[in-house]
């Protein structure tokens, strides 16, 4: 499954990083503490968080995340949008909570 497929299946909104839409997805990791994400997420994961600062993009790039999903309608900061576009990291937004996203991901992944 690609990031594009995920957007369609879960009705997510692309807020940055359109160049990353064809990244392949393999699993999911949910956490807001960056050190834990660095250490415990895997390449190709969908990373679900409510963090919205530029460091989210840096961590997603360093861990080769497939994409980032920002839960609960949190707004990605403008400087983070620019970096995500530059790095080609797709950042998606949704009104759902991390739990609700996880439940839906279980059905589609």
């Amino acid at each position, binding site marked *: 499954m690609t990031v594009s497929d995920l957007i369609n299946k879960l009705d997510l909104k692309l807020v940055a990083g359109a160049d990353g839409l064809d990244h392949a997805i393999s699993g999911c990791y949910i956490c*807001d*503490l*960056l*050190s*834990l994400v*660095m*250490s415990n997420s895997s*390449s190709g994961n969908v990373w679900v*968080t409510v*963090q919205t*600062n*530029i*460091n*989210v993009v*840096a*961590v997603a*790039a*360093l*861990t*080769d995340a497939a994409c980032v999903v920002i839960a609960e309608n949190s707004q990605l900061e403008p*400087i983070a949008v620019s970096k995500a576009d530059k790095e080609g990291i797709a950042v998606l937004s949704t009104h759902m909570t991390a739990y609700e996203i996880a439940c839906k991901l279980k059905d589609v992944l």
Partner: protein
Amino acid sequence: MSDIVKTLHYDVDPKDFDSVGEASGKTKNVLRQLGFPPEVLRRVAIAMYEGEINMVIHANGGTADVEISPKQIKITLKDNGPGIPDIEKAMQKGYSTASEEARSLGFGAGMGLFNMDTYADELNITTKIGVGTTVEMIIRT
């Protein structure tokens, strides 16, 4: 070492949470271009990113130097910050002295030095109160 194929140098800006991760991101890209395997890229990225964050959160920035050779990546992070009073305590998983600002951004989990120790094959810390800290990490390929 005579087999060093490339050296990198970065200045890590003080108190700039917006640019933290640039040095480790660029280093990872260089290593990828040189053909190092994904697991090496991952270990270097984690260890170096944690070091970069620490320099921004706790010291006034500093410098990051990387020596790349076929058998190992050596990362040297040097700052002129306050020094680490109790390294043993600082190494403990979950122990953090990060500011509220840093915590609000998702840092300060108390995993920094623990991750560096976990993902580097060698971690050497030299620190002096009021003078600064030098962290040397070696990741074997």
